[in-house]
């Protein structure tokens, strides 16, 4: 079997000797052009995994900042889809076993690692990658290929049982009703499996908006009334709260939550009983409960209730027509809604499930950061996941930043127009549009033409190429979970802190380049060495851009004079208008754009230079 799919390996090992040994063995055994990166602690591993594509992780779970099972879990969380091979001690079979249970691909026993072991690990990892790929294809195929025949089957049966082809005699009607019910069950199962898969892969986009819980609950009750009648069960909405209660949710997904809880309660209710739904408003959250009068959940099953395909009694479940996925889907959705789901034995028998969801007013009141110090630097975070937003705000606050939230692209635009933010963090997935279009709109506002924008994304690949090829001047791209240290390094950059347009001294005979640079900076164009010298005396610049052809190459004589009023060296980008000659400027302060013909690449170089300019550069002096 080929091991070619494994191109990048991350080795997490704090013992340098072990790391060296492993590197040598992998270099001998691994496929050619496999790149092995070595880090010596978990936080460095997490950072690497958030930034780079890795095909396999080799982990020693005895690290300075993470040990044993904790280390394995953190590695899995940082890269759930990347094959993980754990390096264990000679006598640590228990940990090896736990590692496999946590989803590790394989383990290698330290001190006994040989060529065969290495090759096996690589092959397993290859196979795992191939399987992941197959699974993705399979799931999208299932979606179409299973639903197509199901459409014909359940459609035909639906027409027959609906008497669309004439009134059916009794035994035939009953048999067709059985076929119809079961075809619908199959449809639900296919939908549930696809839902779970998509949610686990983080591919479900939630469209958060102001949602009236009551109307969603009423909709779910209406949709389930027929189903309940089939079980001889009534559904009653007990409403302690007369006023409408708005939460922040995706109404379609919330409907799925209520529907799943209702159908669960109905299935486990004895005949001639009722399922009671209640909505209560708390201070910051809404409590939705669904109570049944069933036999309750067996004690030993309680910890498993939200697991996939978990059913207290398999035979029972088949009779009830469930898929074993309903509550697992409920849990996944409620987590994404920043809510909480749980259950308890109901007084008088049966079970009561509760869902807590954040009130709209509460979430809206959180949008403006009112608790930070008055002199904090204010940022805007466009992020639809409330939990992520709150965590980031807390961390940023400790570092002197105030963070306002925008939960949608529309909100973000309104906030940005009303308040001048020093920097904007944009999640690429937003409920009402993608982050890139938002950035395009923000850049059209004069006050945001140069503001630092940082992109945050849960999907390392999607949209990144679009962004790279566009001229939106994004400071950086961070993957979720956000590496906070890296974010802080970005926010402490002078481009963010200074919040003024950079100034460029442009020494050139024509102004073609200047026009292109005007988009990113204030440009002073001069067409002679003398004029450049005068400009340098008059004010400070963040960067100089020199055409080497000016005055037959004499413009390079300016290099030693490129200093600001404090004596700091001004970085310089040199370019050649001829396009043909590639000047090799040995001076380390100079970056060279290859040819005049490619103004875009010159602008990109200038932009990079400005983004990395040192903090000591000061503002213009009189």
């Amino acid at each position, binding site marked *: 079997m080929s091991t070619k799919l494994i191109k990048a390996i991350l080795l997490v090992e704090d013992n340098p000797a072990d790391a060296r040994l492993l590197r040598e063995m992998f270099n001998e055994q691994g496929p050619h052009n496999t790149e092995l990166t070595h880090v010596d602690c978990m936080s460095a591993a997490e950072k690497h995994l958030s930034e780079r594509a890795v095909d396999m992780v080799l982990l020693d779970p005895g690290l300075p900042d993470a040990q044993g099972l904790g280390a394995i879990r953190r590695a899995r969380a940082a890269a759930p889809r990347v094959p993980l091979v754990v390096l264990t001690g000679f006598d640590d079979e228990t940990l090896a076993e736990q590692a496999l249970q946590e989803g590790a691909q394989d383990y290698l026993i330290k001190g006994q690692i040989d060529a065969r072991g290495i090759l096996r690990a690589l092959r397993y990892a290859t196979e795992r990658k191939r399987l992941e790929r197959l699974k993705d294809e399979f799931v*999208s195929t299932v*979606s*179409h290929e299973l*639903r*197509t*025949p*199901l*459409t*014909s089957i*359940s*459609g*035909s049966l*639906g*027409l027959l049982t*609906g008497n*669309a*082809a004439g009134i059916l005699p009794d035994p035939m009607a009953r048999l067709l009703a059985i076929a119809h019910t079961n075809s619908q069950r199959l*449809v639900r199962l296919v939908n549930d499996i696809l839902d779970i898969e*998509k949610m686990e892969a983080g591919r*479900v*986009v939630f*469209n958060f908006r102001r949602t009236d819980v009551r109307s969603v609950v009423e909709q779910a009750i209406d949709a389930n009334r027929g189903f309940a009648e089939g079980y001889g069960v009534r559904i009653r909405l007990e409403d302690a709260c007369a006023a409408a209660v708005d939460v922040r949710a995706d109404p*379609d997904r919330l409907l799925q939550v209520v529907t799943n809880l209702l159908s669960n309660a109905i299935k486990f209710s004895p005949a001639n009983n009722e399922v009671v739904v209640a909505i209560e408003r708390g201070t910051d959250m809404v409590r939705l409960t669904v109570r049944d009068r069933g036999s309750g959940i067996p004690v030993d099953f309680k910890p498993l209730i939200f697991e996939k395909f978990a059913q207290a009694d398999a035979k029972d479940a088949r009779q009830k027509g469930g898929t074993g996925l309903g509550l697992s889907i409920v849990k996944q959705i409620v987590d994404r809604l920043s809510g909480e789901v749980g259950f308890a034995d109901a007084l008088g028998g049966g079970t009561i499930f509760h869902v807590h969801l954040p009130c709209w007013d509460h979430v809206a009141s959180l949008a403006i950061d009112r608790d930070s110090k008055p002199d904090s630097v204010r940022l805007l975070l466009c992020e639809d996941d409330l939990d992520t937003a709150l965590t980031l705000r807390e961390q940023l606050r400790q570092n002197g930043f105030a963070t306002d939230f925008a939960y949608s692209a529309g909100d973000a635009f309104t906030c940005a127009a009303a308040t001048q933010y020093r920097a904007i963090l944009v999640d690429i997935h937003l409920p009402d549009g993608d982050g890139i279009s938002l950035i395009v709109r923000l850049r059209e506002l004069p006050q945001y033409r140069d503001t630092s924008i940082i992109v945050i994304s849960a999907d390392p690949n999607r949209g990144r190429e679009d962004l790279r090829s566009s001229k939106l001047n994004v400071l950086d791209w961070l993957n979720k979970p956000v590496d906070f240290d890296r974010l802080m390094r970005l926010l402490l950059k002078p481009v963010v802190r200074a919040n003024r347009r950079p100034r460029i001294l442009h020494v050139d005979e024509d102004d073609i380049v200047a026009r292109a640079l005007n988009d990113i900076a204030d440009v002073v164009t001069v067409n002679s060495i003398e004029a450049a010298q005068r400009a340098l005396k008059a004010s400070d610049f963040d960067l100089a851009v020199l055409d080497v052809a000016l005055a037959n190459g004499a413009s390079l004589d300016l290099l030693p004079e490129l200093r600001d009023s404090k004596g700091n060296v001004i970085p310089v980008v040199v370019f050649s208008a001829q396009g043909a000659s590639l000047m090799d400027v040995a001076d380390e302060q100079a970056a060279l754009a290859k040819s005049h013909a490619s103004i875009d690449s010159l602008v990109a170089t200038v932009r990079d230079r400005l983004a990395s300019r040192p903090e000591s550069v000061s503002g213009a002096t009189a």
Partner: protein
Amino acid sequence: MTVIRILLVDDEPDIREVVDVSLGLDPEFKTRACASGADALAMAAEWLPSLILLDVMMPLMDGPTTLANLRKNPRTAHIPVLFLTARTQSGEIAHYISLGAQGVLSKPFDPMTLAASVRSHLPVWADHHAPVEQTT
């Protein structure tokens, strides 16, 4: 009686039949069906249906391409199109709407209510050839 002409485009013969019977539950609907995007373009231009129910995944010319071609022909450009698809994710629905579809119905559908769903997507004066009562 008003006649509302519905053109159904789906490469699966069984689905065509089920949809045909389902739509037949509405006495005002008259349905014709074809199996490919190319046939749909020809039939739409000639028959001028009130609405087109269009499958998304079809060989040779898929639903979105068929829609784009319908929009290019002045004779068919105005005809509302509903996608009928086995893949309905909210993102995909938004995408189809952005292509200019009137709406999206998912497969499997409820055959007893399909006609009503289609009707709800018809513009007020769907059938340009239907007699319109004069009000004074």
